[in-house]
């Protein structure tokens, strides 16, 4: 099988790998780069469990070919906490019971982070729109919305 060399930054760290031609970024992050936080729920772009940021834009890693990410800066939910200190969104998801089975959570938090990076003080409708590409089947949408709004409020308090 032909292998292609790629080099990218994953969660702040320079990484280089040989990947299968045609392999998705999701597969490479999980199988080659060892970060299993993005999940494969549908491999068709409907569930959002594989959401990551590529050069600061939220994208679905199941639909991106790894080869097209040479030189890119890729972040998963693993980038949000360091030395055991959680991101305000992660804390808010914990405290608001916004995770049940947890499978959608990494993608959901990345979608929420992408929102708060653009709009630090979102309305409820902004939040609903921001997670409209992420499916939660334990139907915890309301706690998820509350968690994101809570994290936004916590952020604005810190900023002030």
């Amino acid at each position, binding site marked *: 099988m032909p292998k292609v060399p790629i080099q990218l930054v994953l969660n702040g760290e320079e990484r280089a790998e040989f990947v299968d031609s*045609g392999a998705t970024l999701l597969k490479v992050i999980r199988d080659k780069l060892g970060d299993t936080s993005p999940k494969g729920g549908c491999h068709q772009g409907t569930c959002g469990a594989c959401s990551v940021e590529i050069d600061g834009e939220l994208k*679905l890693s*199941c639909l991106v*070919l790894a080869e097209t990410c040479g030189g890119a800066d890729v972040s998963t939910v693993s980038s949000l906490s360091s030395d055991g200190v959680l991101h305000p969104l992660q804390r808010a998801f914990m405290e608001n019971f916004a995770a049940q089975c947890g499978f959608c959570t990494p993608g959901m938090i990345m*979608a929420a982070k*992408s*929102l708060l990076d653009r709009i630090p003080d979102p309305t409820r409708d902004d939040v*609903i*729109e921001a997670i409209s590409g992420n499916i939660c089947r334990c139907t915890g949408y309301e706690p998820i919305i509350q968690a994101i709004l809570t994290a936004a409020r916590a952020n604005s308090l810190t900023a002030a």
Partner: protein
Amino acid sequence: MTLALQNFPSIEAATAALASPGARYLGGGTLVVRAANEGDVELRTFVRATDPRLNDITVSDGAVRLGASVTMASIARHPQLSAIAPAARAVGGPAIRNMATVGGNLFAPAPYGDFAVALLALDAKAEIDGSLIPLEDLLAGRATRYASSIVAGVSFGLPAQGSFRFAKVSRVKPKGISVLSIAATIEMAPDGTVKSARIALGCMADHPVRARAAEAALAGCRLDKEEVAPALALAAEGTSPITDPIASAWYRKEVLPVHLGRLLLS
């Protein structure tokens, strides 16, 4: 056979590569990579053109040109494209909009391709091999004549203030797959009647189509309940809606006049 990605600096070279069996053009990946993931064994090669002009948006003197690789997100946030932003925002969630392209939308099978419906109502032209082709022709021939063509971009006139309307009908709120999408460009005469109307429908055929009978019936009407009724009755004329897990052809025909009516009277 393993999958391969081929990058070409020019659209011409990519077009030549697309003639090979199993080659498919890779735009944002939301259709083609999905097909590969779902085990489409016919697909062998992703072909991509990296010409930076594919990403250009130009707006000057009311004329718009969108490069084929322009994403829905770039359209939605462009300050001069606010009139058509609702149609770009109707596509997918935020992650999909950061990936899905104008070119891909033109080839997206129903029930996808909401933005192509908007472009059809804007009377856009598609740029293929240096010539401009009416969008209606491209959409009708996208599975046949233009199946291996690469669209470089689309051009259209920016609609006058308030003349462009768009609605995506889905069962899941806030965002689901289309039961229907409807776009309309309505030009009004000074006397408050419709001077001309272009209405485009998604999911009412395997590709976006114009509602010509309704357009003709609308001419000269005031936009009130009584006067638009004849146009609504003709809305589904000549259509053959898709049946899929979202809705049956029967249902789509039944609800089209209701949603077109709401769009026209809103």
